[in-house]
């Protein structure tokens, strides 16, 4: 129905390059998250797709149609804004019906689709209120309902949950997922929150400095980061990186020796939970600095071979600061990266 193709999109603001020839293909009905730190270009990319920003080079195709030169209203998409952008001078009903009315839809169809969207988002009780009479969460629902009411083939969402408090965000996340799954809309979702991206998306595109660093399924992004940046950005706690020296095809860490894919300086990436505690002499020692009991697990920050490292231990294990604990990576969980470029060396297992 509506596949989105980003074909060599480049965007520069004067001398500042926001997007560097981005190539991206979002399949019909797919939910894609654009993930990255602020300033990485993810919002710019979304706005280029929406037509709110003009690209410097490249094309945007929606459903096979080149929309690069079309104004936003002609692109056949809907959008949820970060601050919701719910019109304060219109009732909730008028807001939700806005897109349909602009498209000149007949009253009956407008009514039907407005009702459906408001049912879906549980805002029927507020339809005749003004946005100022609603809470943040309710306004957010109105914004989503407004987008869904037009039954768009493409839905763009710009950090729609970032202004909600933690609990509400969790609740809305689940709801969004089920609603969108049911609607089957092609969705591009911009966020800087990796848990949101992981939880919602079919695929995640991680952006840094206007480039897509990795585009893959959430699990792959997590387990096999393509770069040191992706590993450090995705996951909580982030992946640990130890800068080590390999010689003769091997790297030594404490009592352990690992086979290294290359000689010379190399970076070892290791997730905090991909580790088990062993007896002294059977692994590498970690000098404990801070212990944070999280309930479901214990987060331990310590020092190893001159590097800071965070590991996850079972919740009943509470080492004391100053103590040494001994650790060994789980088999097959070591990730190697080039010390200079940060790119992963061992190709991800399929």
């Amino acid at each position: 129905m509506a596949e989105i193709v980003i074909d060599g999109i480049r965007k520069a603001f004067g001398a500042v390059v926001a997007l560097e020839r981005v190539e991206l293909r979002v399949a019909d009905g797919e939910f894609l998250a654009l993930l990255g730190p602020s300033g990485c270009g993810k919002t710019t990319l979304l706005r280029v797709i929406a037509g709110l920003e003009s690209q410097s080079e490249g094309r945007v195709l929606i459903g096979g149609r080149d929309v690069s030169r079309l104004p936003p209203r002609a692109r056949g998409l809907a959008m949820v804004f970060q601050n919701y952008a719910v019109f304060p001078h219109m009732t909730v009903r008028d807001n939700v019906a806005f897109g349909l009315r602009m498209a000149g839809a007949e009253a009956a169809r407008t009514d039907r689709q407005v009702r459906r969207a408001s049912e879906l988002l549980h805002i029927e009780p507020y339809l005749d209120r003004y946005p100022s009479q609603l809470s943040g969460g309710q306004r957010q629902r109105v914004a989503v309902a407004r987008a869904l009411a037009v039954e768009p083939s493409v839905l763009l969402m710009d950090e729609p949950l970032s202004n909600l408090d933690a609990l509400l965000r969790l609740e809305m996340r689940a709801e969004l997922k089920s609603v969108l799954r049911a609607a089957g809309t092609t969705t591009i979702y911009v966020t800087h929150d990796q848990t949101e991206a992981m939880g919602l998306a079919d695929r995640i595109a991680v952006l840094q400095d206007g480039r897509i660093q990795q585009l893959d399924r959430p699990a792959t992004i997590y387990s096999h980061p393509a770069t040191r940046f992706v590993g450090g950005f995705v996951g909580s706690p982030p992946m640990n990186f130890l800068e080590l020296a390999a010689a003769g095809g091997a790297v030594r860490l404490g009592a352990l020796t690992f086979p290294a894919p290359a000689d010379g300086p190399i970076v070892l990436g290791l997730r905090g939970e991909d580790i088990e505690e062993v007896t002294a002499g059977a692994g590498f020692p970690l000098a404990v600095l801070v212990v944070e009991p999280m309930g479901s697990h214990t987060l331990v920050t310590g020092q190893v071979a001159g590097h800071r490292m965070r590991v996850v231990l079972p919740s009943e294990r509470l080492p004391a600061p100053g103590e040494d604990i001994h650790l060994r990576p789980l088999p097959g969980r070591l990730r190697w990266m080039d010390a200079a470029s940060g790119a992963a060396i061992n190709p991800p297992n399929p």
Partner: protein
Amino acid sequence: MTLRRGIFLSGVATLCAWTLVPIWLIALGAVGGRAAVDSWPKSFWPGSASFATLGSFLAIDGVWTATLTSLEVAVLCMIFSILLGAPAGYALARYSFRGATAYRLLILLTRAFPVGILALPLTVSFIRLGLYDTPVGVALIHAALALPFAVLVSASLFQGIPRELEEAAWVFGCSRPRAFLRVVVPLALPGIAATAIFAFVISWNEVFAASVLTVRHRTLTAYLLAVLSESPLHVQFAGGLMLIVPSVVFIFLVRKHLFSMWGIANR
């Protein structure tokens, strides 16, 4: 603590009286007629309150015409300054473009000049253009006075309307002009109206340019300056009261917007 509160409240009351009592006194002078103005010592209450003076003031030839001219000039000034100022304010608020800083500077520069005085050389060109002694001519120079204000205030008003609202309208099928009309205008309207009323007040009160640029079609202020100074005091006071009453009403109308208007016009 209560003593301090008492001192504080009496200070507030004194300042309110400082504003209101003079208006009360000129109102007394205006309704009292010649007898009250000549009397000594004066009473602080209207003894024989009659609106005869005020009425006869309005009946004086020229006053009514001048009042109408004032209204006409002020309305035209309002229209000019909003029609010219609001688009420029929108441009400043929504686009970043080369020359925006220079434009802002020019606007600020006009504030540093006593614009009314610039009416002096305009006499000559206005006579040539047939604008001399017409309400339009005066309204034009008044609009030049009010325009910088209209530009800066409307820029801040438009800035206060989240860009996302407009973008949402575009995404949901509006063209730029339509989005402007459907979303921006309704939201900016109260502020724009306040700005317009302020432009009205600026024009209503301006006396120098209006005096210099007119002979027969005097605005009320210019008329009072030129003609009433040859009149007895009680008529002058009636004229003064006539000038004040609309101001009080206008300030009441825009009181809610006064501060947001100036707040952002600062920068």
